[in-house]
């Protein structure tokens, strides 16, 4: 009769399985036979077991019941502990790039959401890439603002079509009747989607054009389309300010942005900028060395010192194939909201930059600060044109070694308003090639947030993951295989053979 236990269990499993396999057809004869027969077999097995128990002594039965109770207790403790562990949300991210630890920007974006967001992960059940996305979404869900659900791509074709989902491992973030679709999600792409969903009132930024400035539409390495996208992600609307025809800064401008002007600006434009700033305007300028646009004089009137030279930082060594020191890596920052969070381990990277100093406050109540510095041994090379062409910088005999600043900002109370200006001694650091290198994007965006008085938006953004694509040649792989790969199994097999031989020989 003891054999009835496994027979009944198997029959019950198959009965339940067939019940669920074709729910629309309803339970058939096979299902009922399995369920009924299985239950009967289990009942008979239980009855047999009880009869058998009665043969045992009361002490034995007590011992057996006690140990069975321990099994139940262990089961309850195990389930309870697992539930507690899961609900506690405790987790440790051991990935080298902290793949599942949210950046401050993502946490801020989640907190800023006006309403809860539903994240739907569309996947093919056998898609192993979705595991990483699932973990990332579960980390987001830990915030309490995001609820996560999964949807099989095949079973929910209508829903997938509605959201424009075409491939597995795609996340759709839904807030009310708005949604954002993210393919192959990373924290960075999810952050941008959250920003779009929770977008606050936009600030209007006028981008100066007409004097050879960098192109915010161009998408190759030297273009600035990445900067434009980052600005739009963080609630800035971009508008052209064509300086060739302008005589006033538009009245609705929240800020004016100059990205590497090359040619001289017309006098009426400079006058318009002066009036705009005197009226409490906001200006961000990314200036290259070796250019003279007229903006330099205007900025000098507002207290900035813009020597026409290249900062050479011996601590930075040769970077990107340029002579040593001309591309300074910055790891010294002042205490200021615009550089909050940046420190010696959160560096920024400039290319052939000019110094930007704060030399003289126009009025005592003004506040002029330098924020980002090359290292203590840096000096200024006057042969700007040669350095731009890739030649080595010339060190003057009287070169002054100093923490030369590369970014300065100023606040200027004017009546009931306050003008704010930020000047960077470089524009290449914001180009598509370098914007997302180290913390360049954070430095630029946070400075812009400070200039436009959006200090709460200042944060550190998720970093793009870098993957290692280092090749091992086939020859290397085979050498490793024959050299190391076979040694361990061989030693174990020798041990097994020796034991076998010893047993045989006795």
């Amino acid at each position, binding site marked *: 009769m003891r054999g009835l236990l496994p027979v009944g269990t198997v029959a019950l499993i198959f009965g339940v399985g067939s019940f669920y396999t074709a729910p629309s057809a309803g339970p058939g004869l096979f299902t009922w036979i399995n369920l009924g027969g299985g239950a009967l077999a289990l009942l008979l097995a239980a009855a047999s077991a009880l009869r058998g128990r009665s043969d045992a002594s009361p002490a034995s039965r007590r011992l057996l019941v006690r140990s069975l109770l321990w099994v139940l207790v262990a089961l309850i403790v195990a389930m309870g502990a697992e539930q507690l*562990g*899961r609900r506690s949300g405790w987790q440790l991210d051991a990935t*080298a790039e902290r793949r599942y630890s949210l950046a401050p920007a993502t946490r801020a974006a989640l907190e800023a959401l006006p309403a809860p967001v539903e994240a739907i992960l569309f996947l093919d059940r056998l898609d192993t890439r979705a595991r990483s996305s699932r973990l990332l979404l579960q980390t987001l869900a830990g915030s309490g603002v995001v609820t996560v659900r999964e949807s099989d791509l095949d079973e929910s074709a209508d829903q997938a079509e509605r959201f424009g989902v075409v491939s597995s491992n795609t996340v759709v973030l839904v807030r009310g009747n708005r949604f954002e679709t993210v393919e192959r999600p990373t924290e960075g792409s999810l952050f941008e989607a959250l920003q779009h969903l929770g977008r606050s009132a936009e600030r209007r930024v006028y981008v100066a054009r007409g004097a050879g400035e960098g192109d915010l539409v161009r998408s190759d390495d030297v273009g600035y389309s990445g900067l434009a996208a980052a600005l739009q992600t963080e609630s800035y609307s971009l508008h052209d300010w064509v300086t060739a025809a302008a005589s006033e800064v538009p009245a609705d401008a929240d800020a004016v942005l100059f990205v590497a002007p090359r040619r001289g600006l017309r006098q009426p434009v400079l006058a318009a900028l002066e009036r705009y700033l005197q009226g409490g305007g906001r200006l961000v300028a990314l200036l290259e060395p070796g250019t003279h646009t007229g903006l330099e004089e205007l900025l000098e009137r507002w207290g900035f010192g813009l020597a026409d030279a290249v900062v050479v930082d011996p601590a930075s060594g040769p970077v990107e194939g340029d002579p040593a020191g001309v591309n300074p890596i910055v790891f010294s920052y002042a205490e200021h909201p615009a550089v909050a969070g940046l420190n010696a381990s959160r560096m920024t990277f400039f290319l052939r930059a000019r110094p930007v100093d704060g030399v003289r406050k126009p009025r005592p109540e003004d506040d002029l600060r330098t924020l980002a510095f090359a290292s203590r041994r840096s000096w200024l090379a006057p042969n700007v044109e040669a350095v731009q062409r890739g030649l080595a910088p010339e060190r003057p005999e009287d070169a002054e070694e100093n923490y030369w600043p590369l970014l300065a900002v100023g606040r200027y109370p004017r009546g009931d308003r306050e003008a704010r200006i930020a000047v960077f001694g470089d524009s290449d650091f914001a180009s598509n090639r370098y914007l997302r290198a180290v913390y360049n994007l954070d430095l630029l965006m946070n400075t812009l947030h400070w200039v436009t008085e959006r200090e709460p938006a200042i944060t550190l953004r998720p970093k793009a993951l870098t993957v290692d*694509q280092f090749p*091992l040649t086939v020859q290397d792989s085979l050498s490793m295989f024959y050299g190391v790969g076979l040694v361990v199994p061989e030693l174990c*097999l020798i041990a097994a053979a020796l034991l076998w031989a010893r047993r045989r020989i006795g």
Partner: protein
Amino acid sequence: MRPWLALLRKELAVAFGSPMAWLTLAGVGLVTALIFFDHLRIYNQILFLYATTTMGGFETDTVPTYVNLRDQVFLPVMETLALTLVGLVPLVTMRVFAEERSRGTDELLATTLLTPTQIVAGKFAATYLLVALMLALSFIYPASSVVRAGLGMPHLMVVYLGLFALGIALASIGLVCSAFSTHQLVAAVSAYAVAFVLYDFRWTAQFLPDTVAAWIDPLSLHPRFGSFAEGMVRGGDLLYFAGYVLVGFALARFALIQARVR
């Protein structure tokens, strides 16, 4: 404590005194080496193809980001290693209780000063040590990819913590099956059956209602190991695997007492 340690020593001596343990270890080393180097070979071929100008749609020397050591070599090897454990661990556990019972030496053990709890603890500890040794042997190859792939030692340690947790969960299943069996073959086959059923319930989502699938899915072994493979240690997952040890221990103890009462 001493009798328990004596039992542990005896179990280890029995395990390593038989060719089966060494053959299992050799199997782990060989399978890991073959899987690892085969993935490495394929990865190198893909890299080579992308790096040549003959591939259309990509610029020369431009390789898609998904072709990298982490995704193409490290993670698949760890996944396969986890599946290999399902195949190998029952070979280690099948003899632990069943052999004693079939030879009648369990009665000899029952006459010693050892309590059922101590006997089960000794056998469980010896088996877990063997599982740990199996994993230590497989550590060499992924460690070399860590050096190259920049994954970081903490990630690798977490993956091996996950493999060890999976290994002891599978060992607990195997030991319970062995404790309820008289024949080693029955113990091994039943351990395979239970381990394969519990390994992954994703296939049930095809025909089970969502609510039932959502309830059953967290019981699977594989998704729990998946978090470790991705470099995450989660409290819930650790306690899930610890639960296998606890329940397995209690069930094996019950089986031992049941056999004594009979």
